[in-house]
């Protein structure tokens, strides 16, 4: 009960990339008051909040220190069905928001490639999605949030009130305090389907030229890119761009009040809708990867074969109707898909490059990657729109490239080499995915770091918030 000292569990934790793995002391508050009680308890030297553990590296790890896991603080607090403003606690997952609000005609304004992310995590990483070129990042849709500051006081932060703390917290990787609740603006949708145009680009030039020319016609735009192709086909890609399908344009069998949206009351698929698997909303993944793949399963040869086949089976085609699950969250269908990379794990490597130097940067990096022979399957390329105001927010106008690279010998020096190339082209690394960046490179990539540090220092004079990432990158000092 409240009067007792908060209890914690020692856990071997990792991010989604399963590298690194560290011992952390996890607090799991069931009441709001327990979060403040934990900070005041003196039981650990520092704390970092953690959500569903989908950041890839060490962002939500705090080796031999405290992790606050407010996963049970996941209550919807209010919803205005006229404006679509949802107030919820920070432990609410995007999956829950979809489950309960998509059937009422509301969808996430910005979503990453997984729906197993909490609202708190979405704010801390200032996540982006396939619509960044048009709508920007998650913080554009955060009206305000209540932040439990390291001092123990709760601050209502918005772009108008405590604005400097607001912009330090979005993208601030949990280092300014614990977001307790937030008000988010959802977007109206007519159906749970997207009309997608597929376009096969023969190489990088073709892909970028097509994106630059016509991305603005699409709410969502993303390209799968073959990171192993070399020479004339370097950067060959499949562009997938789409818009939410208006209900009136759906085939008759998919129409109706639900349009592929699941009935939240029953918690089961709507038996009347007659809609297939891709359209209903599973609350849990359908498949579970219950064991680690051996580490050779995704080596250069298998990935090259996969990439070639993937490129070959796709055809340029327009107005393909795709269910939102398949379009936004293809990997969510497999629980623990990260085990594909075997016990050693993998790193996700995501960079953003500015418009002017983006082409040259992408060419340099893809070339280096192909020559290295390090397999990357699921490489993703997309255009970014304008950068937001978050001091440590990742997106900047230009391009972003995301790669999965299996952990293997020599990986860290190799990534440092890529970091340098990124930096030389004026780019930066996404903190939510990073596990190996060096502090000096980080400082060069994020020019607003000093302003962030100044605000953080003032807010957290007792140095109560830290993480393994924060120490590695000297985000806080």
């Amino acid at each position, binding site marked *: 009960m409240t009067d007792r000292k908060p*209890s*914690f*569990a020692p856990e071997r934790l990792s991010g989604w990339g399963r590298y690194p793995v560290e011992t952390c002391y996890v607090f799991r508050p*069931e009441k709001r*008051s327990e979060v403040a009680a934990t900070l005041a308890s003196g039981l650990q030297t520092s704390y970092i909040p953690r959500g569903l553990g989908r950041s890839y590296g060490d962002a939500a790890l705090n080796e031999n220190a405290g992790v606050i896991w407010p996963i049970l603080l996941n*209550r*919807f607090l209010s*919803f205005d069905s006229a404006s679509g403003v949802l107030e919820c606690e920070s432990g609410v997952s995007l999956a829950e928001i979809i489950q309960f609000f998509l059937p009422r005609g509301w969808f996430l304004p910005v979503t990453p490639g997984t729906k197993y992310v909490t609202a708190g995590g979405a704010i801390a990483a200032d996540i982006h999605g396939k619509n960044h070129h048009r709508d920007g990042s998650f913080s554009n849709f955060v009206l305000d949030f209540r932040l439990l500051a390291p001092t123990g006081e709760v601050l209502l932060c918005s772009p108008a009130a405590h604005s400097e703390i607001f912009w330090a917290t979005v993208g601030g990787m949990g280092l300014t305090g614990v977001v307790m609740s937030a008000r988010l603006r959802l977007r109206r949708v007519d159906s749970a389907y997207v009309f997608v145009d597929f376009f096969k680009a023969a190489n990088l030039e073709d892909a970028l030229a097509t994106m630059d020319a016509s991305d603005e016609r699409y709410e969502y735009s993303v390209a799968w890119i073959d990171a192993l192709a070399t020479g004339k086909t370097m950067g060959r890609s499949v562009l997938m761009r789409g818009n939410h399908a208006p209900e009136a344009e759906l085939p008759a069998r998919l129409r109706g009040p639900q349009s592929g949206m699941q009935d*939240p009351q029953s*918690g089961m698929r709507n038996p009347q809708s007659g809609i297939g698997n891709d359209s209903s909303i599973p609350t849990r993944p359908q498949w579970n990867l219950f064991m680690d793949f051996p580490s050779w399963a995704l080596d250069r040869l298998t990935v090259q074969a996969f990439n070639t086949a993937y490129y070959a089976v796709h055809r340029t085609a327009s107005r393909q109707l795709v269910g939102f699950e398949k379009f936004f969250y293809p990997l969510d269908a497999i629980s623990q898909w990260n085990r594909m990379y075997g016990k050693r794990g993998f790193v996700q490597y995501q960079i953003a490059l500015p418009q002017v130097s983006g082409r040259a940067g992408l060419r340099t990096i893809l070339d280096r990657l192909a020559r290295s022979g390090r397999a990357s399957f699921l490489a993703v390329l997309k255009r970014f729109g304008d950068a937001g105001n978050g001091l440590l927010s990742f997106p900047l106008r230009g391009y972003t490239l995301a790669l999965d690279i299996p952990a293997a010998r020599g990986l860290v020096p190799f990534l440092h080499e890529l970091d340098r190339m990124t930096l030389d082209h004026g780019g930066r690394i996404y903190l939510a995915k990073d596990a190996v960046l060096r502090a000096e490179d980080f400082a060069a990539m994020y020019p607003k770091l000093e302003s962030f540090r100044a605000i953080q220092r003032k807010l957290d004079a007792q140095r109560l918030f830290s993480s393994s990432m924060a120490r590695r990158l000297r985000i806080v000092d």
Partner: protein
Amino acid sequence: MPTVLILGANAGIGRALAAEFALHQHDLILAGRDLEELQALAADLNLRHNVNVRAERVDVLNFEALESALAACLAPAGDSLEGAVLCVGYLGDPEAARKDLKEAHRILDTNFTGSALALEVLANHFEQKRKGFICALSSVAGDRGRQSNYLYGSAKGGLTTYLQGLRNQLYHSGVHVITVKPGFVDTRMVYGRGKLPLVAPPEAVARGIYHAVKSRKNVVYVPWFWRVIMFMVCLIPEELFKKLRM
């Protein structure tokens, strides 16, 4: 819509049970010590399941005010009130309780005296209406006293006996009484207390309780296999049992 009162709905099994009843379209009265938490849960269940949920402050340790606090919960529900569930439990700090009588007192009062008094008030209410159910969470710890939690266990054992008598008493007025004995459940009662075997998620336990209420069971173990485990534990001769470290 039928209404159910859940006393101790703040967290853990009580909260999961509230969600289970809401999922099955019951209106709810959530009672507990922390009104702010209850109001957040009330808003949440209303938004998720479109049911009416009211939050009321009730503290089972405040014996004097118990009758009036519960009356305030019960009165507005009127005849729609289908039943009540008592989800009150305090494991406390068994180590500290050996040196600190206050802690021992609190464990006994929460798990037995306060719980039984609250049930007395509820029993009178339902007895007059001559219908409804009363469900209360006891514990497998009440089946046999052991070294590590005998204050908690004895209070829960007392509650189990109380519920036996109450079931007998209320049977004659058509009110059904359900005794629930959960095993280890993944709530703050066990979180951070080292690795325990067979820990069940509160949602699964809540489904079991909901089912027990609807099928008018008398005594249920959740999950079911605790009935087997506790049967075995009770078979161990006292001469041997007293030497065990558990």
